[in-house]
């Protein structure tokens, strides 16, 4: 028995080492691809005809859908930022998803709305709509009041209401930059392969100065949790997403800021109401649908359209958010497990799905069990001390390297953080995140497996209020996911 245990622990440690090596090799590959791609894109955006497109009647109309439930003043900011986008033809559809705190009345007062009766065409089944509100002086704003059904249900309602060939989803606490929509659409217009979905970068607005519904002065948040998240977002968006996009392997576009072709979204049946991460689920479903249909399509991540969002500023709120993200990942992976290594789905089945399954989904399990196993092995002298230390140092160094690279890519390209202090703070936090923050993240993600395995029926959802989140519960399978954007 003892021999078996020792063999198991030592064997697992070798597996951890092997797994770690493979994962990091893949990361290195992504990093290389992302760096080359971003540098090329930076040269390209210098001659993007944004100014011409801004006034061109040939630019397709877009509906901006903002689902909201019990949102505070931030919603007004979001709506106003959406109303101020430089785009020739856009409409804003705000969905009041059964708010109970008087949000609808506040909206009516703020925008001087009047009730209007429109025909609600249920291309996608949703909870009943209670009414439409409109101000003829703001003709491109419409507020839809509906019974509570969750974020996906609200988004589906928005799709039913929108009349544009494209729609963009943004979170109620997210401000889009004025050119962001146009930058996304420029890519859609240029692509000879139909782009059915695309997304841009989500940046952290905590600490920034916001005036006239836009970020005017970029600053770093005072809280260390926000700083860690900035580094994480830079790494996630500037090298993770860009790298995967070049491999045509992106399975996630942030729900905080994505654009979809309406017809494609309708074909796949809209957003799933039984998944906590509807943004990922719909993308995987779109991949599956289009691959089976054998139709040319592209799902793209574009690295320069930017939106700003508030990230959780307390450990508790963040833990809840990360558990939810990972739970959504597990749900999606398990739901579409038949796509895994399935050549029918091309790169999605052979590259993207295995990456998300074995690297993104299983990494917290390997990491958490690995920490325990290596510590046990060390204390019971089953592992060489030098080897243990070297491996630990390597793990920390490589983690720090990846974070530093995220900051470096930002510095090399968009340089949104202007001060020297910003650069050094972010680099410092890139290194520091490997001592505790990363492990904490893995633990939260590990906990999501328990939520998944033990079929927790009461889903938690979060509502952010001045950067914090409130914990609330609702019954059944209705899933709330009005939290922040994932990197």
């Amino acid at each position: 028995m003892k021999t078996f245990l020792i063999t198991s622990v030592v064997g697992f440690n070798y597996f951890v080492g092997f797994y770690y090596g493979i994962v990091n090799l893949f990361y290195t590959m992504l990093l290389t691809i992302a760096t080359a791609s971003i540098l090329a894109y930076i040269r390209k955006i210098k001659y993007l005809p944004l100014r011409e497109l801004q006034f061109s009647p040939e630019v397709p109309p877009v509906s901006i859908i903002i689902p909201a439930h019990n949102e505070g003043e931030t919603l007004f900011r979001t709506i106003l930022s959406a109303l101020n986008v430089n785009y020739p033809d856009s409409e804003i559809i705000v969905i009041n998803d059964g708010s109970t705190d008087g949000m609808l009345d506040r909206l009516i007062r703020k925008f001087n709305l009047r009730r209007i009766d429109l025909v609600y065409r249920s291309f996608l089944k949703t909870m009943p709509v209670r009414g439409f509100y409109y101000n003829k002086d703001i003709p491109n704003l419409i507020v839809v009041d509906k019974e509570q059904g969750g974020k996906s249900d609200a988004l589906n309602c928005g799709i039913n209401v929108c009349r544009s060939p494209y729609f963009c989803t943004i979170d109620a606490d997210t401000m889009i930059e004025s050119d962001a929509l146009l930058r996304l659409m420029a890519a859609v217009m240029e692509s000879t392969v139909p782009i059915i979905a695309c997304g841009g970068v989500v940046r952290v607005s905590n600490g920034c100065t916001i005036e006239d519904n836009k970020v005017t002065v970029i600053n770093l948040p005072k809280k260390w949790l926000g700083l860690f998240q900035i580094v994480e977002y830079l790494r996630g968006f500037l090298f993770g997403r860009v790298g995967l996009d070049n491999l045509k392997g992106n399975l996630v576009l942030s729900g905080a800021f994505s654009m979809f072709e309406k017809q494609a979204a309708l074909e796949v049946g809209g957003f799933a109401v039984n998944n906590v991460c509807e943004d990922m689920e719909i993308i995987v479903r779109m991949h599956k649908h289009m691959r089976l249909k054998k139709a040319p399509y592209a799902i793209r991540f574009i690295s320069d359209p930017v939106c700003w969002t508030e990230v959780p500023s307390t450990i508790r709120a963040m833990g809840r958010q990360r558990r939810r993200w990972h739970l959504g990942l597990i749900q999606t992976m398990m739901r579409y497990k038949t796509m895994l290594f399935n050549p029918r789905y091309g790169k999605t089945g052979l590259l993207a799905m295995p990456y998300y399954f074995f690297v993104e989904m299983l990494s917290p399990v390997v990491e958490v069990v690995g920490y325990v196993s290596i510590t046990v092995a060390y204390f019971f002298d089953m592992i060489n001390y030098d080897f243990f230390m070297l491996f630990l140092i390597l793990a920390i160094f490589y983690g720090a390297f990846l974070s530093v690279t995220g900051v470096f890519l930002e510095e090399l390209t968009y340089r949104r953080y202007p001060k020297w202090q910003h650069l050094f703070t972010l680099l410092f936090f890139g290194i520091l995140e490997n001592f505790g923050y990363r492990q904490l993240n893995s633990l939260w993600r590990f906990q999501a497996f328990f939520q998944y395995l033990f079929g927790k029926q009461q889903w938690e959802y979060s509502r952010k209020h001045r950067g914090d989140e409130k914990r609330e519960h609702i019954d059944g399978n209705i899933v709330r996911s009005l939290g922040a954007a994932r990197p």
Partner: protein
Amino acid sequence: MTDRLMEILYHGTGIELMLVSIIGGIGFASLVLLLVSVSRRLYNGHKYRLLDELRKYYLPSLREMALAGKISAQDIANLRARPRSAKWIAIEDTLFLLLQEDGNRSFVGPLFERLGYLAFYRAMLSRRNPITQAAGISKLGMLKDTHSAARLLEMLDKNDPEIIVAAVRAFCEIGEVALFPKFFDALSTLLDKRSVTMKIIEASLSMAGREVTPVLLQSGRTCKDPRIVSAILKVLGDASADNSVYEFALSNLGHRDPEVRAKALKVIAACEDSVSACSHKTWYRLLKDPVWFVRLQAVRAVGKQRCKEYTEEISSLVLDEKWQVRNAAAEALTGLGEDAVEIFLKILKSSDKYAKESICEVLQTTGFVERLLSLLEKGLTTHGSSMYEIFKIMASLGFTSQLSDYLNKTEDRSIAVIIDLAQHETAQEVSRVLPIPPGLPSRRIRTELRSAS
């Protein structure tokens, strides 16, 4: 720690040495990234400061020269700079700034040539990197370099979409009229190869300006590719259409391609009194076109110009299978004003739920309900009872918001009572009270209601 590391280096196993070297490599790479970030920031800080200063320095003198409209050989020599140097970039930026100001093009345009910018960008077209080529193409387009137009046409033969998109855009910006026929030939091939999108073609053509309208018309008349004809019609339709454009659109109303027919209809809709100039037969055919978006554009065109002779066809389109056509038809009927009341009522009394909803929606969104209420209030209508019935049906379908709003603000109690009745009484109750509805002070309303009953 150091001793331990030395021991590994001297006596460690292969795997330990490998780990140490990987750690060393990663540490070194991180350090390099850090140094690059810092040095790049320092370099950029210096570069942008210098550029700002140079721009500030050159702007007044170049503006002065532009105002004077002449420049000496000495000035040219002073302004020349090494390509891509700070001075080169600053002068180029300044010239672009001046280019945007009215009346400077004749001075600034040749200056780009004399200072070597055009030669530099033309040379970029021969580079191997597609992004460099595309950047060069784009600049030539911005500078409207007519000498490069032929070369840009050649660039359309490349296989890189990046280059093709930039070349299409730049060519249209330059607007070299003589080369447009060749350009359209090339576009057909590109569309066949899926190297460029229709949207890019349309957006680029719309940048070409009004000067190219004659050549667009000419190409549209001779072009056999319906995609190109459709793009030309789209662009011409978005710009203000004149007589020749209208005639071109008219000639395409019978085109075999539905996209072309629809685009031609959009152009027709934009021209005043154009519908009545067409034969009835053409319109009957278009309003019954098998393709829904042609019907949509046809009904919009007819509706926009308020042609009463097609009322019957439009009424039948309110029952169309596509909600877009239904709504457009209902909207077109609202253009007929009070005359549409009886038509609406007839359809609202039909069993087609979707048609009824479309009408109710359009009646609200177009402000037709408000117009009817205003007519009622002023006593200027002979359709009072029909209006009442329309309100009643609207209320039964849940379209009550505007009626409620009206109730809240009106001072005319007689109409208020009618609206109130229409909103709240069920059909049976209304018919029960209709002969002499209680509480109606106005004799006119009472008379109308009695006649309706």
